[in-house]
């Protein structure tokens, strides 16, 4: 499959640069949020996980190597955040609820479409890394190599994981 140049990869970033990290945030926020919405239970959690992703990325920003695909790096962090969130879903602290208080209302909520989508609900039932592989491939258009970089696994593992994910998705959807 032909490699697709990701939007964030067209930009050049300098590790450790505050301004560049802010630019990276602006350029990639929506795509990271889009992935996380399919992996965690609701939009509010996805937004929290997205912010957590950028906090973790910021802490390691000085150590990021410009030769590594930056969006795959961010996705790798985001998927780890999602896995961690699924583990601790029941222990989510009241602190996060309090933090959300005072945020402006989002108006007509397009996330209801996501929450009512059978496919999105089915994705949430898959193991996080399988669901992430499907979203990276079929929503973001990543190649297997880029997915491998994002998940931190060999390309062959990605191929088998995608196959297993499709099979399991069909089973969940009853097709």
């Amino acid at each position: 499959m032909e490699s697709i140049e990701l939007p964030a990869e067209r930009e050049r970033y300098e590790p450790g640069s505050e301004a560049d990290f802010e630019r990276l945030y602006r350029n990639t926020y929506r795509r990271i949020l889009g992935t996380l919405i399919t992996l965690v239970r609701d939009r509010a959690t996805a937004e929290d996980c997205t912010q957590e992703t950028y906090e973790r990325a910021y802490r390691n920003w000085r150590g990021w190597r410009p030769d590594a695909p930056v969006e795959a790096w961010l996705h790798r962090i985001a998927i780890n955040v999602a896995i961690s969130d699924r583990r601790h879903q029941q222990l989510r602290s009241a602190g996060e609820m309090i933090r959300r208080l005072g945020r402006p209302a989002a108006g007509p909520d397009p996330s209801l479409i996501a929450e009512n989508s059978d496919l999105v609900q089915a994705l949430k039932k898959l193991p996080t890394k399988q669901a992430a592989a499907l979203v990276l491939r079929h929503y973001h258009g990543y190649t297997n190599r880029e997915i491998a970089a994002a998940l931190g696994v060999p390309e062959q593992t990605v191929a088998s994981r995608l196959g297993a994910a499709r099979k399991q998705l069909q089973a969940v959807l009853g097709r």
Partner: protein
Amino acid sequence: MSDLERELEQELHRVLDPITALPIPARRQPEARRAARALLGGAGAALTVKVLTGVAVAAAAVTVAGAATTGSLNPADWGQQVTQQVADCKAQLADGQHGIGACVSSFASQHGSAAASAARQHGNGNGNGNAHAKDKNKAHPATPKSGSVPRGLDSEPADQAATHRTVTSTSHP
């Protein structure tokens, strides 16, 4: 591309595109999050809440006891009452008579009873404090344990005038 893959792509775009088109919020600052976590999360927060609750309950108990005894919420009034009582006791002494201990002690024991009663009443709203306060008052009289004399039998008044005879014990051969 299979039907499933095609459907997957279409559905993901249909569902996710409207969400990802929303305005991008400001990036959360790590410092603010750490402060919120320290304040609101973990065992430290639970301990802080408990300590603050304990302090508040103790302060309320002291205030209620003081108010019940003196009719005032100002602790300075309690001290004034004791000072006044000492003066009264001195005034009640006859010429040549010494010692106001019993007189002041009587006032102090009244004060103690009133404070304990007020604390018990306050303790009714607090499960733990209530039971202990009642038990303490009933089961542990003011007499020292070593004497082991029941309170009801201890009706002999204090010998203020020192009229009692000294008892001397002699050893029998």
